């Protein structure tokens, strides 16, 4: 597709070598268009997190390339050189581990704002508070350290930190799996709003409910390769691959769907 913002071509990632080599990602190609949300589903060990890291520039693939615009992101040295590094941001799975426990939510975000925008301290604090406010974190909560915040709040701080760079793509690796149901709904509404503002989102999850709700297109991953991909709605209504069928049959509460809540 021509308007692809980011494109992965025949990406392979292998960990280890020799007889113990694990081929985590095998010959996977995908693209993300501007303003769309794609989903990557699969069970643990299917390679979806590795693929997310490849897209985010954190894991160099052994083969294949990742194109951002027209350029490969993995050139000599570091991935995403210069300004491009800002444009792809990641939100990690574990809101307990991905925030520095010793600094407040405000400092966490302000640090990123300062880094990306070269603002003065007071200016970056103001921008950070504004950003946190949009995420539903009050000024009072912004002064708290991670352990004083709930899981959902921590995850929203992570999102605020990622957004401080004004990215074009947000890669979210299981952002909802460690938080409560009501916090999950808040976070998803937030993502929905961001999509409306033109951000692209790659959502990695094993929660098919979340995928169904948020994404337009979905890639189903098993043993490092895609077994099925397509429009989310079509894949959910008419899964072709046996594995996808099994996945969809396992969603709890599925019998209630369409019954009118």
């Amino acid at each position, binding site marked *: 597709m021509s308007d692809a913002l980011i494109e992965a071509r025949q990406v392979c990632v292998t960990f280890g070598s020799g007889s113990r080599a694990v081929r985590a990602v095998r010959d996977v190609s995908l693209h993300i268009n501007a303003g769309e949300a794609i989903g990557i589903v699969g*069970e*643990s060990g299917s390679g979806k997190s590795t693929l997310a890291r490849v897209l985010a520039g954190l894991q160099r693939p052994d083969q294949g390339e990742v194109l951002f615009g027209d350029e490969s992101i993995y050139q000599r040295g570091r991935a995403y050189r210069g300004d491009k590094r800002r444009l792809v941001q990641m939100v990690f799975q574990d809101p307990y581990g991905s925030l520095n426990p010793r600094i407040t939510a405000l400092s966490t975000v302000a640090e990123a704002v300062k880094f990306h925008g070269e603002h003065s301290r007071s200016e970056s604090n103001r921008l950070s508070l504004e950003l946190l406010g949009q995420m539903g974190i009050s000024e009072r909560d912004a002064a708290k350290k991670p352990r004083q915040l*709930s*899981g*959902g*709040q921590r995850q929203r701080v992570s999102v605020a930190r990622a957004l401080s760079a004004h990215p074009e793509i947000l890669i979210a690796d299981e952002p909802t*799996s460690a938080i*409560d*149901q*009501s*916090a*999950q*709904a*808040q976070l*998803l*509404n937030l993502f*929905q709003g961001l999509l409306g503002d033109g951000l692209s989102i790659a959502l990695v999850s*094993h*929660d*098919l*409910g*979340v995928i*169904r*709700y*948020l994404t337009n297109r979905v890639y189903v991953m098993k043993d490092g390769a895609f077994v099925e991909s397509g429009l*989310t*709605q079509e894949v959910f209504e008419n899964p072709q691959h046996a594995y996808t069928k*099994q*996945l969809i*049959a*396992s*969603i*709890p*509460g*599925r*019998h*209630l*769907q369409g019954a009118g*809540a």
Partner: protein
Amino acid sequence: MSTATVTESPSEVLVEIRDLVIGIQRTRADRLILVDSADFDIRRGEILGLVGESGSGKTMVCRSLIGTLKRRSATIFGGTIMFDGMDLAKIDERRWRSVRGNRIGYVPQSALTGPNPVMTIGGQLVEAVRCNRNRTERDARKRAMELLDLVHIRRPEVVYDQYPFQLSGGMRQRVMIAAALAQDPDIILADEPTTGLDVTVQAEIMKLLREIRTEFNMSVVLVSHDLALIDDVCDRLVVMHGGTCVEVGSVKEVAQNPKHPYTIALNRARIELATPGTELITIRGNPPGVGEWPSGCRFSERCEFVQDDCRVGASPPLLEVESNHWSACIHAGDLGAASE
């Protein structure tokens, strides 16, 4: 496997929890209350769901049923847990040893860290089998094999000699269930048994729990924050919010005719029912933190039907609004019309 739900006739009550108060004694005069007036029954042969957000007290209630509150420095301050003529809220550690594991089995939350990493699967099961009864080594081994077979582990003779790291998360959780079954308990407590496991594995574990229920007429208490899951597997459910039970009833009743605003809100916030692209309905605010409970109904600050009299006095108790259906909302009677 049978998918039939339990018949309407109320079955024998195994455990009767009344006005249970759990908390932490911080100083001589300062008590931090974690659970306040938990109030429900566990019936024989049922799968009972315990739902609530983090901090709602569901894990604490669970721990009070296996007598391990002390390890979390929490204490029972009041109320009773009647089980087979004993009050579990008051028995000492010596009596607990005959109950815990023996009569009430426990499947921990994390399958990945649950099993002892430096002991073989067989060794752990033999330990579980021998802990209360005098069995010979050979007997225990036989029983351990039986247990592995019971939880549908293929090639039990191989798994017996393996270590936890060699098993997948789903297999490990099956082993934990096998260990919980070792003494043929009356009740199995499963505290978020599928957190961190894949949906397909989750479905298998749930199927297994249902089989165990049907085969041994055992009661299963399933703690979860996933209402959809509870709906799928449970017969009855207890909804907890802010350290207290807000609604108790059959899953079908509560899903179709919820009588507490919190349950109504939870039902609405369910993502698997949402239309993609529309805004999800969220519950206002955050769950009340421990020690920050408002006066009156603890949901009042987040409730869309709140009225002035909701905010005063003590937390309202559960009242039977329909037969076998309890709600702690003082306006439960008016909700039917309001929630349409």
